[in-house]
């Protein structure tokens, strides 16, 4: 028995249709001698078709989950929460809570924005999954939409105005940001309690 590409199969398991006959058709064709390239092409097509079907069937839940996830990241950026985390020494100094860090020069390096963004978008993916009753498809859509929203809202200006190496950091942040959102969301999907009613039930 030939084994189909593992990553493609994993993607199909998470983002494919809940109804399994199309996956069975795919495996049957692959066993009859189709190539791995063919399998990947079919998996992408099945995921695209399944995603559009699920979004059209549950537009309110999809939009609500994406809005909640986007609002969370927007508040974190524009509500200065991320700034406060990355500049905690100044915050603690100016508020008078704990000036010790600032007076001793213990600051967070500029590059900390990279892991902080990973954590932030991982959290946002988790929130989107919870808000969509554990739908991996909605998480996938959110990862795509958030990339567009982030770039329109924030990333574009950094590309234009920031000198290097900040622009390089912005490029890296923009490029890898949907990945933690996806992983955070899929983690929430895989740890969903069996008693919770799934979106496509």
């Amino acid at each position, binding site marked *: *028995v030939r084994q189909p590409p593992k990553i493609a199969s994993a993607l199909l398991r998470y983002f494919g*249709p809940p*109804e*399994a*006959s*199309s*996956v*069975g*058709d*795919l*495996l*049957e*064709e692959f*066993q009859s001698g189709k190539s791995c390239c063919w399998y990947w*092409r*079919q998996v992408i*097509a*099945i*995921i*695209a*078709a*399944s995603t*559009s*079907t699920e979004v059209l069937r549950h537009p309110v839940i999809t939009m609500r989950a994406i809005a909640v996830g986007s609002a969370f990241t927007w508040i974190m950026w524009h509500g200065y929460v991320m700034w406060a985390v990355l500049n905690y020494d100044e915050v603690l100094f100016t508020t008078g809570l704990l000036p010790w860090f600032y007076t001793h020069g213990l600051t967070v390096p500029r590059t900390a924005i990279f892991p902080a963004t990973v954590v932030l978008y991982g959290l946002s993916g988790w929130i989107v999954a919870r808000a969509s009753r554990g739908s991996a498809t909605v998480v996938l859509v959110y990862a795509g939409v958030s990339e567009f929203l982030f770039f329109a809202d924030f990333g574009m200006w950094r590309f234009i105005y920031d000198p290097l190496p900040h622009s390089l950091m912005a490029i890296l942040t923009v490029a890898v940001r949907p990945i933690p959102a996806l992983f955070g969301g899929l983690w929430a999907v895989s740890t969903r309690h069996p008693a919770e009613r799934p979106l496509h039930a």
Partner: protein
Amino acid sequence: MARQHLTDFELMILFAILRIGDHAYGVPIAREIEQTGKRTVLLGAIYTALDRLEENGLVTSTYGDPTPERGGRAKRFFKVTGKGLKAVKETQRAFTALWSGIPQLKGGTA
């Protein structure tokens, strides 16, 4: 207003199901379209169209038994309903009406 006629892809799928008969599921439908219709198709596109046809009552589906070569997944067999047959005939009539009277299409193939 409800859609009266089928798309060419939906029509091809209905033709394929009718040609195959009782054992029409995703794989033979795709093969039939590829071999007879000379068109490369994606299984995802076929299932999207089949779901749409089923929602509109043009086909019905039943599940078979799971098999090992399919990773334990059951086959989903499709049948064209009476409404589906009527839609095929209406679409054929519309195409024929459009086809006739065009001088460039008279005599031989394109």
